[in-house]
């Protein structure tokens, strides 16, 4: 099916099913229950899952497959956002032209930056991309203010020309749409205490994510993907065979840049504004984390990592002291205060602390990421089953 072998087809169908049924899967707790705060099934968060999924899938092609650690990809995401918002301002509120332009712009810039950065490899490459990222951020933040609106960020206004759209007489800000289907439209399905939300923006992004995932799958299985893997494994040896690896690395860089541009364009399509802070190099650190957390060089890993991080970002930053107190209220007061004080720095505003710690722990103990960890546990269970069928019941997978 779709030129995929059987195993890949199953994986792909699995991802399709998960993404399409996400409004159900992400919403396991009834709205009224106390656990409802752990639900992830609302449009904004689900959109971010798939959009950052796209970003991470693309980044994985460069980092996971080719082994080049770039700190500059947030810049392409930001450029994609700016391009999309300009399209909303000048042409039409339809997302398709905006997305096309954001992919093209990000592709062109990644061609330029990649062409220069890829003349070096290893740490030099990382530092070059770092320098480019910081430069792009500063360009967007202050130098190119006419194009980017500097600190405030680029927004749509009522006065924008929008040559293809009918003249806006409503006096309200126009909303992004796909041929009239508004991105913010949400249908809610109430079943016995559960409220499932189906959002147009989510499904549009999800379709793009599935296409992106499919393409990345094909790249992984193609001779081109094999070449990228060879570059990661031993570039020197590859060069000694007389092959010039530069075109391949550049292609990988541009592809991942275009993925980032698409993600940025989608972000802007969901909420039509673009700010420079999206381009900061520390934002690139986040996509690196997503990729290694899920498993760099694996197919499913980046999507998994993106979902994981965005979910915990959302949940952790919502937890405040009151919630903590209510959790530990069954304990004696001194213990309650103790636990609240211990956990307090890691939640709410301290989410980045948790993120940083997670970063260190994952890199140190699980460089293969969640997918690798899951596989290892799975293999161990299977081995145990073979040796003694009773041992399996005691181990349970974390995922």
């Amino acid at each position, binding site marked *: 099916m779709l030129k995929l072998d059987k195993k890949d087809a199953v994986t792909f169908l699995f991802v399709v099913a998960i993404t399409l049924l996400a409004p159900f899967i992400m919403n396991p707790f009834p709205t009224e229950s106390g656990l409802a705060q752990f639900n992830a099934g609302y449009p904004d968060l689900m959109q971010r899952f798939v959009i950052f999924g796209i970003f991470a899938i693309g980044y994985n092609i460069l980092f996971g497959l080719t*082994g080049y*650690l770039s700190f500059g990809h947030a810049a392409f995401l930001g450029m994609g956002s700016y391009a999309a918002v300009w399209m909303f301002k000048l042409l039409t509120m339809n997302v398709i032209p905006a997305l096309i332009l954001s992919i093209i712009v990000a592709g062109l810039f990644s061609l330029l930056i990649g062409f*220069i950065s890829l*003349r*070096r*490899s*290893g*740490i*030099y490459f*990382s*530092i*070059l991309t*770092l*320098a*480019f990222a*910081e*430069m792009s951020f*500063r*360009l967007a933040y*202050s*130098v190119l203010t006419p194009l980017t609106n500097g600190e405030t960020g680029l927004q749509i206004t009522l006065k924008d020309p929008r040559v293809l759209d009918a003249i806006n007489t409503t006096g309200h800000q126009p909303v992004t749409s796909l041929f009239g289907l508004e991105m913010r439209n949400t249908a809610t399905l109430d079943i016995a205490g559960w409220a499932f939300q189906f959002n147009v923006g989510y499904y549009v992004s999800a379709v793009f994510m599935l296409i992106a995932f499919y393409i990345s799958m094909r790249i992984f299985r193609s001779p081109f993907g094999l070449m990228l893997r060879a570059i990661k494994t031993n570039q020197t040896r590859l060069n000694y065979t007389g092959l010039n690896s530069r075109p391949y690395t550049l292609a990988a860089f541009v592809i991942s840049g275009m993925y980032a541009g698409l993600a940025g364009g989608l972000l802007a399509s969901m909420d039509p504004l673009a700010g420079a802070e999206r381009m900061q*190099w*520390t934002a690139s*650190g986040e996509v*690196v984390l997503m990729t*290694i957390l899920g498993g760099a060089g694996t197919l499913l890993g980046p999507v998994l990592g993106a979902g994981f991080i965005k979910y915990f970002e959302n949940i952790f930053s919502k937890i405040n002291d009151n919630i903590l107190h209510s959790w530990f209220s069954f304990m004696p007061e001194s213990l309650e205060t103790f636990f609240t004080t211990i956990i307090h*720095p890691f939640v709410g505003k*301290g989410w*980045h*602390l948790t*993120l*940083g*710690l*997670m*970063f*260190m722990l994952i*890199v*140190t103990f699980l*460089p293969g990421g969640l997918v690798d960890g899951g596989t290892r546990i799975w293999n161990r269970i299977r081995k145990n089953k073979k040796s003694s069928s009773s041992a399996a019941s005691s181990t349970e997978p974390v995922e």
Partner: protein
Amino acid sequence: MDAILLQVLNGLDKGSAYALIALGLTLIFGTLGVVNFAHGALFMIGAFCAVTLQKILNISTISLDPTKTDFLGDPLKIKTPLVETWFGEIAGQAIIDWTVPLAVLFSIPIMLVIGYVMERGLIRHFYKRPHADQILVTFGLAIVAGELVKANFGATEIQVPAPDLLAGVTDLGVYLGFDVGRVAYPTWRITFFCFSLAVIGSIFAFLQFTTFGMVVRAGMADRETVGLLGINIDRKFTIMFGIAAAVAGVAGVMYTPIKPPSYELGMQFLVISFVVVVVGGMGSLAGAVLAGFMLGILESFASMNEVKSFFEMLYLPSIDQIIIYLVAIIVLLVRPRGLLGKAGVMED
């Protein structure tokens, strides 16, 4: 002429900070072969050593003065810092006034310990891992350090004033024959520059003229052979890591009166100091120092109005924001090994 001199001076203080951080980075890279993304965080921690010392010195006892009242009519509260009670009023005030220089002494042992613990506890496990892993784990560490500081000190910048004696302005132009007031320059920045020269000088002297330094240099050239000669080179390198951390730390302390520290300070300086290291040549100590000062001065020249308006004609407004990165990219493309880098060292 005086304008140019002023810009050179302006660049020197930033350049000193760049040079000190880059020197530490190069020391770590040259000895341990580790790319330390947490080095900016060390600079920031140093700055917060000064903040902490300031807080400690200002711990006060509060007494009520019944003879005076404040604007609400309550008896006026008088804060007496403990150091004033202990050492007498004049000595106590002097101690508080000289917080920053004292913080240098205060920070050195702290930074040495932090460096030592960091190397033994974390970095050591990453020698055999790829550079990407080293970058990522130290990047995570930098985030953690920044967030811890934010949790304890808040997100706003904290002022730590320079001692009164050095807080004013020195008219350097007078010594050089310019008119009075043409080349006036904050005294603290001159102090900072001299301080960083002293630190850089002593690091070089330490490496050049002591047995310890000789062993370290030998280890940088060929670690394995030095190890085979029966020298515990790992231990020496650990100490060098501590020293590099201390250099970043004291730079951070001395920089606090120039730029009030916040938790973001580390990340702000990190990128630039990496750029400095690469421009100077990875692994070259002299290159790091040279590039640090050069880029600092270049940055301050680019912020001159004349230069700015020239570049605005070329449609490049606010060139000072990006000049360092532009130069870095050009240098890396034209001369990949950096200004003073040795041929063949990390050149791929």
